[in-house]
C-alpha cells in the first residue's frame, strides 16, 4: 500500500486495513517486540510517581523542539525517553506536573499510550494536539479562513474555546489517554490546535501560549524555529 509509485505504474488499490506498510496477504504472524520507556533512574521510589497531580500530553508532528523550549523550564527533570521519534517524559517538581512530549508517530501510539497509562494516575490530564489546519472539517470554512492558528476543545473547561465538532477527531497518544480516561469517568481536557504553520513560529504559537497561560501551565515564550535554507521548490 505504501510503495512509492513509478511513472506509468498501475496503482492497484488495497484495503485500508493496515497503517504500517503491510499487504493484507503478508500480515506478520510474529508479535512485535514490546516497547519500553527508557527511564533515567529507577521509577519505583521516584518523587513524581506519588506526587504528580497533573499530566500534560503535548503531541504533534515535529513539535519536540517547540515543546522542549516552551515547557521545560528550570527545574524540570527528564524522567524517560519515549520510544517514538523525539518523544520524552519530564517532571516539574514545583508544579507537580508530568509532561509527555510526543512527536506524532501513529504506528506505536496504541502501545505508548498503554505504557503512559500504566505509569501514573494523575488527578487531572490535559492533552494538547497540534494538527494542520487543512485537516479541520467544517461547513463554515469562512469562519476560520483567516486564522493562522485556532483551538478547539473536547471537554475543555475554558469557556472561550469552542468545542470540537463532529466529524473532527484526534488520533495518537493524546487521543488514547483521553479516550481511556473518559471511559473511566476521570477528569480530562483535550485541546486541538489547528495551525497553518506546524513549525509554530511566534505568530502561530501565540494562541498556544495563551492556552498554556489559561491552563496555569508555566511556559517560556522565547522559542524561535530554526531557519531552514532548503527550498521547497526543487529536490
Amino acid at each position, binding site marked *: 500500500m505504501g510503495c512509492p509509485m513509478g511513472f506509468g505504474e498501475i496503482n492497484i488499490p488495497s484495503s485500508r486495513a493496515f497503517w504500517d506498510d503491510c499487504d493484507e496477504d503478508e500480515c506478520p504472524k510474529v508479535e512485535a517486540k514490546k516497547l519500553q520507556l527508557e527511564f533515567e533512574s529507577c521509577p519505583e521510589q521516584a518523587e513524581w510517581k506519588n506526587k504528580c497531580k497533573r499530566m500534560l500530553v503535548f503531541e504533534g508532528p515535529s513539535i519536540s523542539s517547540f515543546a522542549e523550549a516552551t515547557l521545560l523550564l528550570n527545574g524540570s527533570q527528564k524522567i524517560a525517553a519515549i520510544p517514538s521519534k523525539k518523544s520524552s517524559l519530564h517532571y516539574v517538581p514545583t508544579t507537580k506536573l508530568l509532561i509527555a512530549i510526543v512527536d506524532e508517530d501513529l504506528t506505536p501510539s496504541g502501545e505508548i499510550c498503554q505504557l503512559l497509562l500504566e505509569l501514573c494516575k494523575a488527578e487531572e490530564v490535559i492533552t494538547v494536539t497540534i494538527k494542520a489546519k487543512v485537516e479541520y472539517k467544517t461547513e463554515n470554512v469562512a469562519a476560520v479562513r483567516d486564522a493562522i492558528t485556532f483551538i478547539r476543545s473536547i471537554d475543555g473547561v475554558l469557556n472561550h474555546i469552542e468545542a470540537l465538532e*463532529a466529524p473532527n477527531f484526534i488520533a495518537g497518544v493524546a487521543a488514547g489517554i*483521553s479516550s481511556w480516561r473518559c471511559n473511566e469517568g476521570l477528569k480530562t481536557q483535550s485541546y486541538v490546535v489547528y495551525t497553518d504553520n506546524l513549525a509554530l513560529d511566534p505568530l502561530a504559537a501565540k494562541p498556544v501560549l495563551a492556552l498554556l497561560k489559561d491552563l496555569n501551565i508555566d511556559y517560556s515564550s522565547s522559542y524561535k524555529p530554526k531557519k531552514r535554507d532548503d527550498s521547497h521548490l526543487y529536490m
Partner: protein
Amino acid sequence: MFRLQLKDNVRLEDFKGYTVIIPSICIGNAAQLACDLLISSKNLKRVASISHPALIPCYGPSAFQHEPEEKIAACELYSCPDSKLLVFQFRSPFISTHMTSFHKELANTLNNAEKVIVLSGSLGFEKRIIDSCPYEYKASESFKGIHGDRLQNMKWKEFGGEMIFGGGNALDLYKIMDEQNVPVMILFRYLLEGDNSTDAALILSELSELCKDFLALNTDVGGLQLKVPISWKLLFGNDIPELIF
C-alpha cells in the same frame, strides 16, 4: 495488552447468545460505513470500548446523534439487548505487527456469541463473472450447522478462494474465530473505491435479509429505514473555496 472497558455495569457474560457483527477494514471502508448505518438506524447503545496496541487510538465528539454525550474511540461496541445484537465499530486502521494477538483476544472475548458475522468488501475487478451476484459469503461448518437453511435461501455465492483481495483483516479474523469454534461467517460485496455510502446501505440490506427476524430494519412499504450518522457529514472534506475559480 487487550483492554475492554465496559460501561454501566454491563458484563461480558451478558452477551452470551448474541449475534455479533464486526466490520473488517476493507476497500472503501464499506463495512465500517455499513456498521455506522446499522448503529445509527437502530439507535444502538454504546456498551464498551477496546484498546490494544494494534489499534491507533482516536478520540472526538460523538459520531451519532442519538448518543450526543459519547466520545468516539478506536474500537467501540454497541448493543441492543432486545435483539440480542452486538455491533463493533473500528475507527482507525490496524498495526499489522499486533494483529494476530488482537484477533486472538477478540475471539476469546466472543466465544460465548451465538454467531459472528464479519462484513467486508472486495475489489470490484476481482469479480470474474459480470452478471453474477455481487455478494459472496464464507461460513464455518459450525455456522452452517446452525444457519445452513437460511444461507441456502440467499442468492449469495459461496466464496471458495484463498484470498479476499481488498477484504482487509476479514479472512484472518475468520480463521482465528473458526479455530476457536466460534460460528463465523464473512459476507462481502464486490465494490470499487469512491463514494461507498451506497455500498454500505446495500451490504446492510443483504445482512437484513439474513437477519430480518431481529434486525427489523425493513419498512412496511419495502426497503430499509436507515438513518445517516452525523459523522458522515463532510465525508469528502470541506466545500471547495469559491476563490479558486
